């Protein structure tokens, strides 16, 4: 390989003139869209202010009318809505690509939307000899985070809270931004490094030595990462070390930084799993607190785990493993607001409710549910975070187009369904 080969490879990728003009047009559209969002936020702020003043005036006047349902404020609402900026007429809606993708992903997570293909993400289908093997597979699966329904029943848990999503619009409020910002800046101070760059609301700041601290609304967490190795960790330090030893070296450096900022009384560590495909391997170290109360433990594991990520291009071939970052949940410093405590539906009720629905052509029946778990559905743009059942369905026959013999093996298909009333689903 020569230097020019690398140089040449880069030249092979480029946009044509038409694509460049399209990109430019999209940039202008996004700028307008952003301006429009800011105007709407401003109008909403003014509306809240006016409504508050009217309520206050009504209260001071002792009007005797229900202030929340008086007619005056509705009239004022209309005035504000009509006062849109002129340029809104020119606004062209932003392309919906990302939104559509999210919609598609969302569809995968609601009841009985079975992925069209098995495999892929690693949680669409399990082939096992028996249920103990299923348990082992689930223990090692990165996508598995639920609590067994039987355990909940043993604990006498018959209801679960539905949480409000703190960022339902995918954007933070100024108050939330302030809280996040305080945490991020505190983190930066702890590292003793200067801020060299930051975005307007300081939800993302870059420190010396390439360390970035970012509020990640998608994951409801703060991601701390760096492009650069600590001075104390060199190639020599890592040479010939096992996965555990390498992780231990990094953890000795990064964990004290994090430890001083978190309030765990009894931190536990778990090198939980390794993801791998043909080109890279990924390792995650979870830090969590140990609770005596299993329900408390469950909520902690769902929302409050601190996770360190490492990955290597090809670890088995001796490539070095790199620290990717640590994720600190937003919940850790601002727990989600509880909307209500809702009784969980029983599995019998679920089956009755979805009577006649099919999974790969097989009707849903109670006797086919070999395992049931509860976990929390935290899709980033949903208004609520409701508890969801993951039901593991044993297939009686292999679906069509599957060249699998089920005589010696069990095929288990997990499906997800809301454990509380449908009104807590998405935008309802």
């Amino acid at each position: 390989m020569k230097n020019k080969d690398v140089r040449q490879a880069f030249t092979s990728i480029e946009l044509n003139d038409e694509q460049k003009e399209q990109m430019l047009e999209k940039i202008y559209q996004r700028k307008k869209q952003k301006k429009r969002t800011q105007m709407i936020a401003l109008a909403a702020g003014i509306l809240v202010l006016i409504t508050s003043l009217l309520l206050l005036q009504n209260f001071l006047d002792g009007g005797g009318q229900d202030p929340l349902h008086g007619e005056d404020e509705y009239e004022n609402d209309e005035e504000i809505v009509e006062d849109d900026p002129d340029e809104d007429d020119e606004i062209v809606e932003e392309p919906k690509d990302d939104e559509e993708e999210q919609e598609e992903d969302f569809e995968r997570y609601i009841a009985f939307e079975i992925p069209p293909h098995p495999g892929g993400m690693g949680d669409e289908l399990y082939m096992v000899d028996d249920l103990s093997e299923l348990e082992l597979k689930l223990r090692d699966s990165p996508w598995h985070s639920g609590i067994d329904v039987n355990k909940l029943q043993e604990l006498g848990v018959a209801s679960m809270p539905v949480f409000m999503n703190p960022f339902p619009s995918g954007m933070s409020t100024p108050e939330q931004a302030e809280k996040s910002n305080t945490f991020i800046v505190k983190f930066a101070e702890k590292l003793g490094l200067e801020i060299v760059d930051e975005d307007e609301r300081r939800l993302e700041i870059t420190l010396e030595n390439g360390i970035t601290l970012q509020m990640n609304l998608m994951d409801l967490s703060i991601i701390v990462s760096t492009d650069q190795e600590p001075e104390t960790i060199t190639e020599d330090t890592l040479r010939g070390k096992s996965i555990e030893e390498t992780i231990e070296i990094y953890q000795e450096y990064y964990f004290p930084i994090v430890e001083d900022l978190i309030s765990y009384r009894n931190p536990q560590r778990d090198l939980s799993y390794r993801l791998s495909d043909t080109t890279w391997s990924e390792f995650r170290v979870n830090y969590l607190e140990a609770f005596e109360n299993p329900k408390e433990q469950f909520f902690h594991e769902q929302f409050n785990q601190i996770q360190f990520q490492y990955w290597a291009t090809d670890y088995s071939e001796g490539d070095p493993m790199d620290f990717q970052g640590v994720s600190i949940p937003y919940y850790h410093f601002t727990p989600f607001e509880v909307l209500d405590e809702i009784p969980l539906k029983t599995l019998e009720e679920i089956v009755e409710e979805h009577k006649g629905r099919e999974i790969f052509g097989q009707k849903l029946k109670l006797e086919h549910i070999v395992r049931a778990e509860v976990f929390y559905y935290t899709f980033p743009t949903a208004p609520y975070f409701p508890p969801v059942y993951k039901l593991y369905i044993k297939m009686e026959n292999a679906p069509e187009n599957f060249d699998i013999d089920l005589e010696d093996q069990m095929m288990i298909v997990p499906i997800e369904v809301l454990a509380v009333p449908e009104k807590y689903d998405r935008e309802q």
Partner: protein
Amino acid sequence: MLSTAKDEFEALYHRNVDHVFRVCFMFMKNSSEAEDALQETFLRAMEKAPPFKNEGHEKGWFVVTASNICKNKLKHWFRKKRTGDGDRLELVKHRDHYEFEVFDEILALPEKYKTAIYLYYYEGYTSVEIAELLGAKEATVRSQLARGRDMLKKTLGGEEYEK
């Protein structure tokens, strides 16, 4: 936007769109997400209107900003779980198989090495200049270049490898 400001922005766009797109594609590995990152990069330029000292500084700002935007997008673990390598074939005008192979291996490099590799090999910056652009120590940049090159060498063969 006033027409003069618009003209200036469009000139800025045309001066930088090629390398911004290369960087974005190098990180995101598919054209739709690369385009999204490209748009964000230019939106940031439009909003911040950074005072560039010269064209070199301007180019450096765009490459580093685009890299940072892409890295942040990749940090969304939700995205990592659902995105594959996408449509890299769709856009790459590979002149021959080997060239495509090299590009494929560049895409597979760890994120932390990519910016340095791009700036060094394609843009021709020195390790000192790259260190300045990235706010990093020169030794760190040298290490990133060495590790990135070693990975490419390992996968592509290294008999004619130049130091």
